[in-house]
């Protein structure tokens, strides 16, 4: 599903150039659940952003479902993103001014899904995440675990082929964290490819494979199953 070859990305400030990705190469097959681990600054978030088409690489190749997307413009990236990719963030990133229902509905709005269908699809996913009873609450009124379940609901509502999770349990206690990991595992079992950046060895055990990064390169790969 994803094939990156010699992917490069560096950030420049006036004085220093930081290499975030240094000719990184790996592949993720459809249906896989991959964890990316490594110390802070090793480039894992950069990788996730490029995989999520939120950022573009400086060099190398990025095939998404066999299509070279490394040099897509913003419009094409946004289009590909909204149809294929869901995101889950450490800090949930829910819009404070929107209710649970409205937050989850957002990707469908941008996909141009009509109102009645949107309602039905959002309700299905809220039900699945067991937060239906909170549909009219605002994010501030929810616990961290509930917020992350909303974020996961939002990530899956448009049935993406790929979910990118950036430390999804980082802000959660262990029981809430486990719940979220179970949700992700369930989604993976239903066929969704998941790539998860994490610091947590515990969480990484839920995945099929761990890519360990250092200084912008993949140093080891652990196959867990």
């Amino acid at each position, binding site marked *: 599903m994803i094939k990156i070859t010699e992917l490069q990305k560096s950030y420049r400030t006036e004085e220093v150039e930081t290499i975030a990705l240094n000719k990184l190469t790996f592949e993720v097959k459809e249906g896989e659940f991959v964890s990316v681990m490594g110390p802070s600054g090793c480039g894992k978030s950069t990788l996730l952003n490029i995989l999520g088409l*939120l950022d573009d690489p400086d060099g190398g190749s990025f095939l998404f479902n066999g299509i070279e997307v490394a040099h897509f413009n913003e419009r094409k990236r946004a289009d590909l993103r909204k149809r294929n990719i869901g995101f889950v*963030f450490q800090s949930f*990133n829910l*819009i404070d001014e*929107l209710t649970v229902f409205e937050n989850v*509905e*957002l990707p469908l709005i*941008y996909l141009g899904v009509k109102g009645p269908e949107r309602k039905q699809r959002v309700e299905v996913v809220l039900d699945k995440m067991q937060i239906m009873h909170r549909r009219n609450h605002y994010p501030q009124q929810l616990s961290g675990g509930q917020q992350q379940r909303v974020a996961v609901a939002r990530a899956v509502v*448009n049935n993406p082929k790929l979910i990118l999770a950036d430390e999804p349990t980082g802000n959660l206690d262990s029981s809430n964290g486990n719940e979220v990991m179970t949700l992700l595992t369930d989604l993976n079992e239903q066929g969704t490819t998941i790539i998860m950046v994490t610091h947590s060895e515990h969480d990484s055990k839920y995945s099929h494979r761990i890519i360990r990064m250092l200084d912008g390169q993949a140093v080891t790969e652990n196959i867990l199953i």
Partner: protein
Amino acid sequence: MLKNYFKIAFRNMARYKVISFINLFGLTVGLSCCLLILTYILHEESYDRYNSKASRIWRVTRSFNNKDGIVSLHLGAVAPPFGPLLQNDFPDIQKVTRLLPTGVTPVRYEDKLFNEDNIFFADNDLFSVFDVNILKGDRTNALTDPFSIVITEEVAHKYFGDADPINKVVRMDNRYNLRVSGIIAPLPENSHFHPSILLSFNTLKDSAIYGEKNLATNWGNNAFFTYLLLPENYPAKSLEARFPAFIDRHMPYNKKDPASQPSKYTKLFVQKLTDIHLHGHTDEEIETNGDSSRVTIFGAIALFILLIACINYMNLSTARSTLRAKEIGIRKVSGAQRHEIITQFLSESVLISWFAIILAAALTILLLPWLNGLTGLHLSAQLLLKPAVLIPIVLTPFVVGILSGIYPALFMSSFQPVKVLKGLFKAGGKTVSFRKVLVVLQFSISIVLLISTTIVFQQLDYMQHAKLGFDKEHIVTLAYNNGLDKTFESFRNALRQDPHVLAATRSSRIPSGRLLDEQGAQTEAGDSLRPVNADIKYVAVDHDFVKTYGIPIKAGRDFSRNYATDSTGYLLNVAATKVLGMKTPEEMVGRNFAYGGVKGKVVGIMGDFNFEDMHQSILPIIFVIPPANSDQFGRISIKLAGNDIRATMAHVEKVWKQYLPEVPFESTFLDERFDKLYKSEQQQGSLFTTFAGIAIFIACLGLLGLSAFAISQRIKEIGVRKVLGASTGSIVTLLSTDFLKLIAVAAVIAFPIGWYTMHSWLADFAYRISIQWWVFIAAGVLAAAVALFTIGFQAIKAAIANPVKALRSE
């Protein structure tokens, strides 16, 4: 999608109440100012357009040139022979109609006696040229019979109550009986004339009134407002090219001397009816007209205020962008394209503008009575309801919304989701500089308005308190009535019975009026007289005019009853001696002089004084004692001692009633008349102050929001500084300095613009103040003080807060 945008817009407004209030309030006030000023502009532009034939009606005006070809006088009215001759010579002219104002005239019906101010001689064609709503009477011949009148409903009610006014007879000036032959509805306010009584033009043919001969030959009585009805789309201006030949064909002159052709010194013009109010500006108008430059100035002020409000929106939205950054990031991650984010923010600003325009419409209706009180107009919000106006108003929120929202929308839509969601986002330096530019722009406009207001008031004060060259205090003026022609000396003596009446005089014109009368002058050259190549305006006076007005005599003497020859004597002012080539006033005294063909001697020279308002420079003037019963006097002036004015006025009224029982007593003080001259400037000044105040207020509201935001961003820095020992004072200074620097830059930009604007404004006054440097400094300091007050409150609040709290919150 839009529903989602509006939903979040509403919730954001509710969440950030202060900033939402500043935005909404600013835009509402800005739009209200625009609507109020728009109402005023529409009113001014609407003059005479109610006439269904407005585009076909043209007024004939007449100018007089001096020998150098420079226009010395341009009158909105022409001599009586022109009207019929134009109709005769130019077959394209479909109709000619004329109006001759009579001036204040007493009218009596039974025991009701009033001074009527808007009496015009007019003919039946007035009703077919202008849209006049005839309520009773025959449109085609109501004004045919001599001594018939058509009156307005109000006048009818005033004299006859509920009785049928038709065929009722009123007495005018205790001399003529006039029969009511028709009733008209009053002309709308936006008409350039408002007759209350129309008197049949044929009445003028009566030799006791004016006479047919006079109508046909009096080329000097330019008091007849003459209107032409032309065919649709007729090139009226092309007539002007044919007027010189027309003038020479009809006006008498010495045919052997081509240099004396009338077309050499006088010209006729045509002026569009709809241009009279704003672009008329001739020296003789029926009513005081509007001023197109004032319309432009206020239009510009309205747009500036709206711009300041839009800038507030831009600034506060971009400043607040960090708070919206996460939302934008999430939307982008959820699949939003950039154009969708732009649309979202534009729809927010358009939505706010929509609220603002609705509130502004309500505010406008509430404030119109206030504006009417200030301007003396009767503006109505109905003016805004015409489709041609309403549709643009309804579309305004889109323009204002897009104008205010486009920059924040472009800026925020460019956020990279990676950075904002990772919390790495910081509003960039470029935005901060752009916000600074906008604040500078706001304050530049405010400072220019402050400077302008101050200078307008200085000039007003100067005009009202400048030495005029005579004593205008305690002078009462009354309309002269011909009933006093034979009894004036006795009337004067009766007035002087009261020791508080110091002097009384009659004259053709009085100071505060215009100097429009002029005849040819001849001055001594060797043994003979040669024509003077200069304009000298004349005023017909009696022996006591100079004394009454306290005009200083610079050389020679005042008119005196002791010299019988003074009936052909002349008094000139110093300005006149200068145009006559005299080095000193004394040189002119005792010289032979002829004015209007009457030979006499110059008996004295008066000091220069401002007869007209301060817009006009002092002209050469000649005072002449007219022959008895020459019907030249227009007003009486009475100099009072100044103490016990109430009792003195009672005495004056008693004498008046004794001599003129048929004329209602109406008096005005001269200083009131002078004040009236500057009424429009005074209104302009008041409006300037108001709008300048509003501009600064809105700018400061923006500054309040911006500084609150800027300070909230620096809470940690303030905490650290305090922990390291910074005093409250030093922190307030730190926080205020940034903003004060912007005000300083704004002042530097505003000064030259303010100077240039006011220099141009003052150029319109012959007598004006010189612009003083301290006005600029004061405006800058005031703007800075207001800004400092705005920022200071928040700065102090931030500076005295417990630093531990600030640091813990990080």
